[in-house]
């Protein structure tokens, strides 16, 4: 990666980290309700892949740990935070919440909360691209535990059969909710499972963004060139629990500390410092600047935005409720 790209991505990753940490705080303050799945520790995965792809051009779909993926595709952090606050200005107008961030203008096709649910949707998006003849690709980010759902296998089979332009990115953070991969999955290395479907698959370190980027470039190029699907497994770790009601009793503090030694932001920061492109003081200033932006703009926007109106409770259930279209009325147009 070029130095200027690495510096830009470091800035983005710091925003992603601080955004998520601020969400945690807002949740404790009961400003955010429902479930909240946070991303700290995994930032190099989404950032590395999307640096190799074309954010805003390629279609991205994911599970409920979705805030950072949306922002990376181009969603406004203010609208994402407003969504978490349940406000009318939120990215899904307060109807979705943390697990259902959408920004279709930026081709972020949503966060879905049934584990594995996005697999066939991603393949369907790829099918639409294939029919329309575009050069976009469909990228599906999910965790390792999603691969134990039946639709994982059903989707891989169809994607290979029909040579669909879809990249499956498996962020293997070693836990499915509170059960470790060794205790839930017969094959720990997920890319090995994909061999059964004749789909090229690769595995790499998910903490070093440059490693992710290099592997992702190969993956993205393969799919964009019309060679069909590809599966990329990134070995990573989430610092927080699965969601907010999680005391992390299923893993040791030693294990957590070990992974924090390989923090994706610090790896990139230290490399830039070593390369003479950044100083520690500049990094600390970046953190402060990011916090100020989050507080003064992002949180403020969410706080000050209006709630949805109760009169609009049933808006968005059906697309064609009150229209006079012939297929609703049977009368000639």
């Amino acid at each position, binding site marked *: 990666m070029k130095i200027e790209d690495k510096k830009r991505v470091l800035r983005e990753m710091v925003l992603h980290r601080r955004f998520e940490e601020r969400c945690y705080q807002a949740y404790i303050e009961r400003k955010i309700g429902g479930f909240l799945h946070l991303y700290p520790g995994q930032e190099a995965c989404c950032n590395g892949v999307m640096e190799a792809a074309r954010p805003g051009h390629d*279609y991205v*779909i994911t599970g409920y740990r979705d805030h950072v993926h949306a922002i990376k595709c181009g969603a406004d952090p203010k609208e994402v935070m407003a969504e978490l606050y349940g406000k009318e200005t*939120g*990215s*899904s*107008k*307060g*109807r*979705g*919440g943390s697990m*259902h961030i*959408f*920004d*279709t203008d930026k081709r972020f*096709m*949503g966060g*879905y*909360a*049934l584990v594995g*649910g996005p*697999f*066939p*949707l*991603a*393949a*369907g*998006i*790829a*099918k*639409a*691209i*294939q*029919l*329309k003849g575009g050069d976009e690709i469909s990228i599906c980010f999910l965790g390792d535990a999603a691969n134990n759902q*039946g*639709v994982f296998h*059903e*989707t891989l*089979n*169809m994607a290979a*059969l*029909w040579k669909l332009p879809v990249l499956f990115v498996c962020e293997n953070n070693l836990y499915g909710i509170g059960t470790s991969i060794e205790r839930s999955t017969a094959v720990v290395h997920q890319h090995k499972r994909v061999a059964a479907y004749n789909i090229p698959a690769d595995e790499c370190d998910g903490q070093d963004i440059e490693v992710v980027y290099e592997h992702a470039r190969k993956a993205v190029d393969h799919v964009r060139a019309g060679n069909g699907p590809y599966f990329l497994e990134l070995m990573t770790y989430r610092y927080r629990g699965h969601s907010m009601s999680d005391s992390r009793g299923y893993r040791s503090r030693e294990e957590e500390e070990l992974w924090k030694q390989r923090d994706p932001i610090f790896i990139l920061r230290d490399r830039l410092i070593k390369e003479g492109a950044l100083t520690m003081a500049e990094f600390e200033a970046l953190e402060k600047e990011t916090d100020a932006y989050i507080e003064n703009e992002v949180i403020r926007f969410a706080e000050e935005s209006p709630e949805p109106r109760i009169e609009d409770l049933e*808006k*968005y*259930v*059906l*697309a*064609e409720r009150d229209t006079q*279209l*012939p*297929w*609703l*009325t*049977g*009368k000639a147009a």
Partner: protein
Amino acid sequence: MANIMYWEAIQRAHDEEMARDPLVICMGEDIGVAGGTYKATKGLYEKYGPLRVMDTPISEGGFTGLGIGASFLGVRPVIEIMSVNFAWLAMDQMFNSAAKVRYMSGGQLTAPCVFRSAGGAAHQLGAQHSARMEKVFMGIAGLRVVTPSSPRQAYGLLKSAIRCDDPVFINEHELMYNMKGEVPDGEYFHPLEGSEIARAGTDVTLFGYNVSVHWCLKAAEILDKQYGISAEVVDLYSLSPLDREGIKKSVSKTHRAVIAEEDEAPVGVGSEVIAIINEECFFELDAAPVRVHSALVPQPYNHTLEKAAIPDHEDVVKAVLKLFGKA
């Protein structure tokens, strides 16, 4: 007017819509090279090719989700689920993805897809191939449910469902694909909402949908000829949304109601129609409404037991006579 079969009507709707719009596709098990279990997609594979007429693996959850994903980008998939019993495997995608995506995205995404499936009890297909599942689908916000009782409706409802921006579930019937009926020669869109008076009457309303419309029509004939009772038959081709106005209007005229369904009674179409009658026109009633429905059993294989489990026109006649104190 052409006199064609139910399956031919469905095939014609597919063909017209696929010829008009290259983004209309169809997918399902055996629908292409094999021509479809009920011939509803006969000849389309030869005409439109494998990219648009997709023979899918036997993976209902997977291919239904794939169709829904394609619809996010404006593709209009008509997804055939060979038997409604297999739709259980696809319901996560139908309900959690297609029906909810518009709401949970704040109106940004819609899933304009059509799910077609053969429901109903046929002949001795046993517990896992005889389900009537319309009552499951009609309770889901964001999903339209229609069910054609004739070739005309089968053609017009599919045409409308393909054009509609909402996901639509079309509940067909295994025993009706060879039924013949008049279908307009010109293009015809059947409304996705409302109900139809299949036979006008004054003394009692018989509500039916899909196959049970035919039990009601036969029962009305018998009631008229043998008992001098004038029955109105209302065809509830739209199960979601149900036509509150149509139900109210007919019951306010006849003051009596019988609801005939092939489904089992609990949480069924009958329960729902009676609830609407109570809410809309309770004081118009001269007698308590009655449900005619299947026995609450997994469908038996044995021919005699199966016949005993499923109602028919005679059960509708009996219910009406009871309502009038004549049985």
